[in-house]
């Protein structure tokens, strides 16, 4: 099949690209709006509360109202902040978070950019967000923000290592970094999916991913009980909204990646359900992962910094490396999977 991205760049294909980008952006913004709503509802139910239910029918317009409020707020920059960096940080955080979405395939045909380096692209770009967070913490000229920024740098750099290494197993299994090939290697039903043979890698990936997202129980950079709000303590209005947006866009990216790498992407779980189109399966699995993230947030307390680092370097990294070794040995003895 001829994909549109194989055509040489012209006004026509350029226009399609722009339209596609706007479409993805709109879709992601819609996702973020309702992910926040859904998160508040789910956690509310878990805590015997109702969650938002006043703005619009069933509170469906709550996030819209929140965004409107943030946009209308006065934009304050602390007098002693480093102005340039302070303004740059939210943009620098958001742009890569959105750019990483380009390579996610939603079904065997629907994809924005078919990248052969696949997963590495995600790692390279998401690293930029870490820098933005450190910049935000530094530029605010606030001690709490600085501590939050430093914690965030330490945490995200530490957890990127097991995150990448845990995926290596899947990559070896498929023999490719391209996500479409990784999903193709899992084609079949749930017993063909990576999360069973790669169970160690899957566990490490999920834990490291939650940490990369700065979500409970790894939400130390913004631990509100110690650091008030961490790196974005001085931000208000739409700059703060950008940081929030970044966080949820990464939730989107990580949930998609987990689906693709370990849960078989758009493949249906059992043969009897073949008639349902792949894209629906993709978003069902995606929704389950997002729900689990919210569920964890309602349940677990937060770790301490030293414990967090210990977990990354002493537990997750050795496990991830062990996983590579086992996968390599298996492939050597019994041949490739898929």
């Amino acid at each position: 099949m001829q994909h549109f991205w194989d055509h040489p760049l012209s006004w026509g294909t350029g226009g399609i690209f722009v339209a596609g980008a706007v479409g993805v952006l709109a879709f992601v913004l819609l996702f973020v709006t309702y992910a926040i709503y859904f998160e508040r509802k789910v956690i509310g139910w878990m805590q015997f509360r109702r969650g938002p239910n006043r703005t619009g029918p069933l509170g469906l317009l709550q996030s819209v109202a929140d965004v409107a409020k943030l946009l209308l707020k006065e934009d304050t920059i602390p007098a002693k902040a480093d102005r340039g960096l302070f303004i740059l940080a939210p943009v620098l955080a958001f742009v890569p978070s959105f750019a990483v979405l380009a390579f996610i395939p939603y079904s065997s045909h629907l994809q924005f950019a078919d990248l052969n380096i696949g997963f590495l692209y995600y790692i390279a770009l998401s690293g930029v967000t870490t820098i933005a967070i450190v910049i935000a913490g530094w530029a605010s000229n606030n001690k709490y923000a600085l501590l939050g920024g430093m914690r965030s740098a330490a945490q995200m750099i530490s957890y990127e290592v097991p995150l990448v290494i845990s995926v290596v197993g899947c990559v070896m299994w498929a023999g490719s970094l391209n996500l479409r090939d990784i999903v193709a290697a899992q084609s079949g039903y749930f017993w063909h999916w990576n999360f069973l043979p790669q169970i160690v890698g899957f566990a490490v990936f999920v834990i490291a991913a939650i940490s990369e997202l700065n979500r409970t129980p790894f939400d130390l950079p913004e631990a509100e009980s110690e650091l008030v709000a961490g790196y974005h303590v001085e931000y208000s209005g739409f700059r703060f909204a950008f940081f929030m947006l970044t966080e949820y866009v990464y939730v989107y990216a990580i949930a998609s990646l987990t689906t693709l790498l370990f849960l078989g992407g758009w493949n249906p779980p059992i043969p009897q359900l073949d008639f349902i189109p792949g894209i629906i399966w993709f978003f069902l699995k995606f929704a389950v992962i997002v729900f689990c993230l919210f569920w964890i947030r309602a349940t677990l307390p937060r770790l301490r910094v030293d414990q967090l680092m210990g977990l990354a370097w002493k537990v997750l990294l050795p496990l991830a490396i062990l996983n590579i070794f086992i996968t390599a040995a298996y492939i050597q003895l019994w041949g490739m999977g898929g």
Partner: protein
Amino acid sequence: MIRTEEFLLNVGPQHPSTHGVFRIVVKLDGEIITEATPVMGYLHRGTEKLAENLNYTQIIPYTDRMDYVSAMTNNYVLVHAVEKMMDLEIPERAEFLRLIVMEMQRIASHLVWWGTYLLDIGAMSPFLFAFSDRERILEMFNELCGARLTYNYMRVGGVKWDAPEGWIDKVKRFVKDMRLRLDEYHNLVSGNEIFLSRIKGVGQYDAATAIQYGLSGANLRSTGVNWDLRKTEPYSLYSRFDFDVIVGKNGDCYDRYLCRMAEIEQSIRILEQALEQFPGDGETMGKVPRVIRPPGGEIYVRIESPRGEIGCHIVSKGKAEPYRLKFRRPSFVNLQILPKLLVGESMTNMVTILGGIDIVLGEVDC
């Protein structure tokens, strides 16, 4: 040349984990605290001085506002001191009502501590669970005396209001439910691996240190000292009931946690017995002179509040107002060990340790 330097960080007075307007100036080396200086007094209202111009009944509402999480025990310590000075006889029904509300208050207070402590540690849900149970207690208090926090319920010689129709049954139902809820809380939190690793061995001190610093309540009992004024110096009707004093062993935050959780269970036990023996009818006010004038002299009485030993020292010159009134506030005394515990700990442990002491700022500053 790369170098590092220590920096000062102002934690509070507006900070989510200081539980009110409390401030700690910490000197940080990275995230490790090298020096901590607590600053208090932001909520000082001069209760003790104000009391010198008020008659004893007028002082009672002021005690509500000291430890606003446990107002009933504060009410009690004042009226108990005056009653002891005047040698008053309290009707049994009134004394039962006092004991029941004090034990309910202890449960409510520990629930607030439990919820906020877990919130400090980063778990969100327990806070809401705890407050929904506490809400039931506050509702019952509201029915009893028309207020949810500042009850002004006890009087010298008895209590202001008798229990309304069906109130005792309501408490009975609550106590029954509370047992189940407590099991649920233990299932949810007490075994959580992250939670345990956060509080085990943190903020540890031994019994001798605790006594030196004058600690009381769960802060003292967690080190293994068997000291609960309800048992050691029984007041009210506590000698009639069967309950245990919970002591810990290691004196760390985990033992304090277990002590407080077990105390809720003991309070439930006391309540069950008290509700069973509650007299069907009787007076709620004893024979008290129209103007309360304790004879000249001094008295110090102390009782076990949820936070520890709360004491009331009255110096009377035989007038309707006290010559001098002094409260020994457990939150204030317990807080004194904080700077010692914080040195060498991280910012995260600071929150854990401060939360573990269980202070109420209204009482610290008084």
